[in-house]
């Protein structure tokens, strides 16, 4: 059910010719994924998914759509040749991937599972030992800083473009 929701809205998101609807479908698709996370009992990640994607990125996208596009305007259609080729390539890729995935027998580990609860995550996130992720955390923070600077410079340019 969730899967169906995710996939159908995903397909619609990339095919609908109304950009605003595409954004909404994307939103549904993302929520569907969050649902899947919930269903797999990864609550934290589901929460993050909803907060960051639904609350952040999608909103960002919608804003940018407002900024750049008249809502309701139909998107230009892609050339049919391109569509066929893309579909073909994508289908091949999908087939190949599926084939390999199904041929491969995943052997689940026998180790003691670590519960994905917030406390554990927090521990690890700032740990510097074997299983710690403090360094990636720092790196990501640098990345976000850099992204911020980049966005500021690019988006807030002082002079408007001269046509």
């Amino acid at each position: 059910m969730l899967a169906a929701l995710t996939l159908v809205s995903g397909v619609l998101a990339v095919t609908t010719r109304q950009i605003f609807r595409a954004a909404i479908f994307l939103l549904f698709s993302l929520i569907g994924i969050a649902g899947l996370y919930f269903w797999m009992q990864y609550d934290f990640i589901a929460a993050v998914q909803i907060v960051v994607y639904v609350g952040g990125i999608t909103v960002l996208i919608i804003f940018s759509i407002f900024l750049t596009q008249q809502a309701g305007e139909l998107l230009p259609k892609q050339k049919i040749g391109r569509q066929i080729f893309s579909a073909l390539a994508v289908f091949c890729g999908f087939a190949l991937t599926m084939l390999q995935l199904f041929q491969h027998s995943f052997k689940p580990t026998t180790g003691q599972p670590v519960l994905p609860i917030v406390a554990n995550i927090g521990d690890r996130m700032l740990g510097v030992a074997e299983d710690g992720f403090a360094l990636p955390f720092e790196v990501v923070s640098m990345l976000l800083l850099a992204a911020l600077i980049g966005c500021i410079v690019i988006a807030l340019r002082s002079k408007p473009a001269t046509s």
Partner: protein
Amino acid sequence: MMEPGLNHILVISAALFFIGVFGFFTRRNLVTMLMSIELVLNSVNLNFIAFNKYVWPNKMDGLFFAIFVIAIAAAEAAVAIAIIINLYRSHHSIDVENAEEMKF
């Protein structure tokens, strides 16, 4: 319907991945291309979580990977949108085919 297991999730994520890729190939609007990328990244996240859950529950590598991917996706989206907006200012369009001056 059987109890959904690893394989089902993998099918979903792979399908989502290629849906995203297809979108990236065919949408002419830059923002929708970006949206397709988000789909791709989400499918990967789904993969990570699924593997973590069903195959390697002893560590939380997949989970953390997913968290960081989300962060990266956010940063990337931010920069991409900034660039797109800037492009819109100079080209007055965000159709990808209007930005093909450089070729061959």
